[in-house]
């Protein structure tokens, strides 16, 4: 089960053949993937942080896109850009969290944790029962696997991103579904 996304293949073909510039094709790819990238982050961060980290992810992709290496034959089903963005989201989020931990340690004596204002979209998440239950029930890696699979990222890319085997990704996905179900049937249950 995956969210159907338009194919990146025509954009890659046009860029590889020199029909469109790196900048124009970057904007096309942004249009194609801005929503999943933002959602990957917004599920786990407050809106202003999701905006910042999304900007970081697209900055990294922009720089890499300038010297992107295309294989001799582009496979229509392949999604190298989606894979790149998924991995980059994972790494950038890890970097952001480390920076937050450092800042929190530095500020420990000065401030308490201030609650982030909840945006309407985030409030809306609360009425999405299954997704909220998954967020509550799953470990960070299981959630990463779940949202990757739901977006159509290949098991191979997810496995490489998390440093696990493809069968561990499949197990992680099944475990995430089972844990979500357990929380839905017993709201007190968690990780």
């Amino acid at each position, binding site marked *: 089960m995956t969210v159907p996304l338009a194919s990146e293949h025509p954009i890659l073909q046009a860029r590889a053949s020199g029909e469109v510039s790196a900048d124009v094709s970057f904007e096309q790819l942004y249009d194609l993937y801005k929503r999943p990238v933002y959602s990957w982050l917004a599920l786990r961060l407050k809106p202003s942080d999701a905006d910042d980290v999304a900007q970081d992810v697209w900055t990294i992709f922009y720089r890499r896109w300038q010297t992107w290496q295309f294989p001799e034959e582009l496979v229509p089903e392949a999604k190298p850009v989606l894979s790149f963005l998924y991995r980059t989201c994972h790494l950038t989020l890890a970097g952001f969290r480390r920076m937050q931990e450092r800042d929190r340690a530095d500020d420990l004596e000065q401030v308490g944790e201030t609650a982030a204002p909840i945006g309407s979209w985030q409030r809306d998440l609360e009425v999405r029962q*299954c997704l909220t239950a998954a967020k509550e029930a799953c470990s960070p890696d299981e959630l990463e696997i779940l949202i990757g699979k739901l977006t159509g990222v290949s098991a191979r890319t997810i496995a490489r991103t998390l440093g696990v085997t493809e069968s561990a990704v499949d197990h992680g996905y099944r475990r995430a579904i089972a844990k979500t179900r357990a929380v839905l049937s017993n709201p007190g249950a968690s990780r």
Partner: protein
Amino acid sequence: MNELDVERTLNDEWHTFVDTGQPNPDLAVTTVEARGNRITRPVLWAELEDVRLAFAELHAALDEESKADALATTLWSVKDVVAHLASWATEFKRQIETVAARATFDYLITFTPRVGPTEWNARELDRRRAMSLDDRFRELDAATVRIQELALSLPDDLLFTAAELPQTPDGRPESRWRTRLADLMLMKCWHDRYHLDRLQEVLRRLE
């Protein structure tokens, strides 16, 4: 709800979540206008982590000694290239720490255009001849981890202000490179990937 129902519902909810999200509509344009130069600490950390993970994969793939001894350039074996990368990782780390300590450099690295710092490279490679492949990877990883820490901890005025480095195109101290430490960190990633591409190609050929 059975597991299949949970899976279906999750898929629907995720789809709606994605469709109703509000990503910045101007981000593509502003990123293009900035030429991708809006560098932040998470960008630096993620880029360094990306090459770290790629080196870990490469290390795991070098499971036979013969692979490490295969020729990767006209002069260097795979093992030599790893030593070369370790030497530059250590040098980049040293340079960043020196600038962070607000100290100056008492040496130069002559970086001849199109040829590179051949003498420095050869000397550093010689110093690592006796090191095992594992030790070379260990040095490379340790220096990269340290640079990641510095990317998160250096004050803004050190990380994002141009500093004078020992690299010089003509051997003259007055021609020394001036660059931001943040850009030096990205330069390390670019250099790592340049060699990684070649090493991965060599491994593919051997398999």
